[in-house]
């Protein structure tokens, strides 16, 4: 349990993300709708030049197939560039440490991981990646995958909006989200992080003689610029293998709180933006209550367990409270950065982390969090319609059998992508290739492998295994899961949005979706769906470990 001061800190941080989100939302809406802003005089000529250079007509609009095609093609092309850079880093510039190129399977896993906004890492950046790779492969994909998330949400919302005729133009969305939201916000955050102690240099590692005269290397690099987009873009992949536990990424409790805030900032902003984008401000309410209500449940579950003391896997400057708090937020926002080793977190904290990754909408990843919540809304509208015997409607449109089939497939992608490979990993004995794995208690071993695939499918990226999972099986299996977990739901939800275009809308819905009552039914149905799907597996993993009396997952 946590004390009064710690509870106040939790409430204060969540309140500040909610306030910032509501203040930032009108600006984001202007960017996504092409409404004039003050930055226009500076950015309009720049953006026009970009459209001319890439040969895209900014006035052209796209249907869902065109939009999806452009999304997947651009993302794959960007992954291909990053792949070439990672494999070839040995002959590329800005490599003062002289690191060789990555193996093909590791490079493949890494670019899929970053290109899907997952950021699962089967390598330790400080001993494997050159400065050039950290910037032009890792930070590059962190920006583009985050921007893609905002774009596909905007496109989905355009389709759902009453009176819509198209999903927008992906290239315009992509350029505007980068130049007007992500790049400026990250530049400010990066410089604040430097001021608070996060390094930013390309001058090479520094070798010093310690006070006692031993030789020590200080692993400095372009860290702050990476950390800013990694948190703001809900990416989560760290500069260092130890991620945000490594002091150069997160040197003080102040940076810790700032980074927690940054993880929640844009996903929360997009919830507020949703109502305005859809043209019915009140429709933000169920999304907001649903996501923050479930986040409160996650936090309550995690803090119910005993908070670990400073000990194995916990950094002194954060302690058990901030480590547990971070773990809940980083999974609820599907960011996946960690400020402690997961092995140091108590089993209920891990259970709560699972909940964040299984729901994917509390508030979820940048852009896609709102999309998943809309998926749950459609399912809930349908279920409530069945129970009350009324026509299911959302945003004035009738929800058809085909719509429900689509969202159910989008939902089912997730358990299939998690459970099948988890079982395959044990059945094929692929887990035996993980060093030290055979000596772990069964509940701990199962928790770690289930977590690996849950984190991959949810595009979260936090993990127990880290570089220990750098085996061909885990590199290819998790890459496939990350790709499916990212693009199949996006494709289905864009198809759903596309099919809503031109559909007849009624002014007065028989069942209102913008009230508190619906919001609580929504929370209930999400819990029911997720718990029914995953409970047997959670019982074999973290719940068993909890009832075995394990304090943490050291094994």
């Amino acid at each position, binding site marked *: 349990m946590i004390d009064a001061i*710690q509870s106040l800190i939790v409430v204060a941080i969540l309140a500040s993300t909610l306030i910032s989100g509501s203040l930032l939302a009108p600006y984001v809406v202007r960017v996504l709708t092409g409404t004039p802003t003050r930055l226009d005089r500076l950015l309009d000529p720049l953006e026009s030049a970009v459209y001319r250079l890439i040969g895209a007509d900014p006035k052209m609009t796209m249907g869902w197939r065109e939009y999806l095609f452009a999304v997947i093609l651009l993302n794959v092309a960007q992954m291909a560039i990053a792949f070439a850079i990672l494999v070839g880093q040995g002959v590329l510039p800005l490599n003062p440490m002289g690191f060789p190129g990555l193996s093909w399977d590791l490079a493949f896993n890494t670019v899929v991981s970053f290109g899907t906004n997952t950021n699962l890492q089967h390598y330790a950046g400080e001993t494997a990646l050159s400065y050039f790779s950290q910037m032009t492969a890792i930070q590059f994909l962190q920006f583009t995958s985050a921007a893609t998330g905002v774009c596909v949400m905007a496109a989905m919302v355009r389709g759902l909006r009453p009176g819509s005729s198209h999903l927008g133009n992906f290239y315009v969305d992509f350029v505007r989200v980068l130049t007007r939201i992500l790049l400026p916000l990250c530049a400010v955050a990066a410089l604040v992080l430097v001021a608070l102690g996060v390094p930013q240099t390309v001058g090479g590692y520094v070798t010093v003689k310690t006070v*006692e005269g031993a030789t020590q290397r200080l692993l400095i690099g372009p860290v702050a610029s990476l950390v800013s987009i990694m948190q703001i873009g809900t990416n989560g992949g760290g500069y260092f293998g130890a991620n945000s536990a490594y*002091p150069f990424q997160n040197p003080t409790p102040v940076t810790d709180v700032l980074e927690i805030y940054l993880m929640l900032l844009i996903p929360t902003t997009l919830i507020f933006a949703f109502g305005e984008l859809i043209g019915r401000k009140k429709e933000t309410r169920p999304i907001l209550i649903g996501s923050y209500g479930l986040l409160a449940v996650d936090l309550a579950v995690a803090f119910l367990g005993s908070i670990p003391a400073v000990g194995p896997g916990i*950094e002194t400057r954060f302690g058990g409270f901030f480590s547990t708090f971070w773990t809940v937020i980083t999974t609820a926002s599907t960011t996946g950065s960690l400020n402690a080793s997961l092995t140091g977190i108590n089993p209920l904290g891990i259970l709560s982390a699972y909940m964040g990754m299984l729901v994917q909408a509390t508030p979820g990843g940048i852009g896609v969090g709102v999309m998943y919540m809309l998926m749950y809304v459609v399912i809930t509208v349908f279920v409530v319609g069945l129970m009350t015997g009324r026509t299911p409607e959302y945003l004035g449109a009738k929800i058809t059998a085909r719509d429900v089939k689509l969202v159910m497939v989008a939902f089912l992608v997730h358990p299939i992508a998690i459970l099948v490979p988890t079982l395959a990993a044990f059945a094929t004995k692929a887990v035996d290739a993980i060093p030290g794995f055979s000596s772990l208690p069964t509940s701990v071993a199962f928790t770690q492998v289930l977590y690996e695939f849950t984190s991959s499918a949810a595009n979260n990226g936090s993990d127990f295994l880290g570089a220990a999972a750098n085996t061909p099986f885990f590199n290819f299996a998790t890459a496939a899961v990350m790709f499916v977990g990212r693009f199949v739901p996006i494709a289905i939800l864009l198809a759903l949005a596309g099919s809503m275009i031109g559909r007849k809308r009624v002014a007065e819905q028989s069942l209102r979706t913008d009230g508190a009552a619906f919001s609580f039914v929504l929370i209930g149905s999400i819990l029911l769906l997720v718990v029914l799907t995953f409970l047997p597996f959670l019982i074999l993993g973290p719940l068993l470990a909890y009832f075995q009396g394990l304090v943490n997952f050291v094994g």
Partner: protein
Amino acid sequence: MSTRSSRWRKYRPVIALSILSMLVCGLAYPLLITGVAQAALPYQADGSQAQLGGRAVGSYYIDNGFTLPAFFHGRNETNPLTASASGVDPDITVAEALSQVPRISNATGIAGSSLVALVKSHEHWTLWVAGTPYVNVLELNLALIAAYPSSYPGYA
């Protein structure tokens, strides 16, 4: 020819935008931040390095690896079961620091009460109010050397 040029028209935005976004997000952005950070905040940008006797001896944020009995020790040299998540945790709890006072007092002859007072005066709190009070090991040892130069000959 016409199919080739129409194909180029179709794929040109994808190819051009993927390269352009790499140049802007992957090179221009981090290098611009590096330039500003190096000009405005060089101390932090280079890893908050600690100085002793006019030379850099490490970073305040990275465990300095103290092993001599006359110094406070970090938590990373012992066994992996008590290790921190980063493996370079620069801090120890105040309780841990106080438990090391008798050893340092024995090795240096500095009074235990003076060492306790030094620890207390370098106490940090997580956000001033939460967590367990802790000390930065390098900061504490540099303060020790500065306060008792005769007990640490050859260091200052």
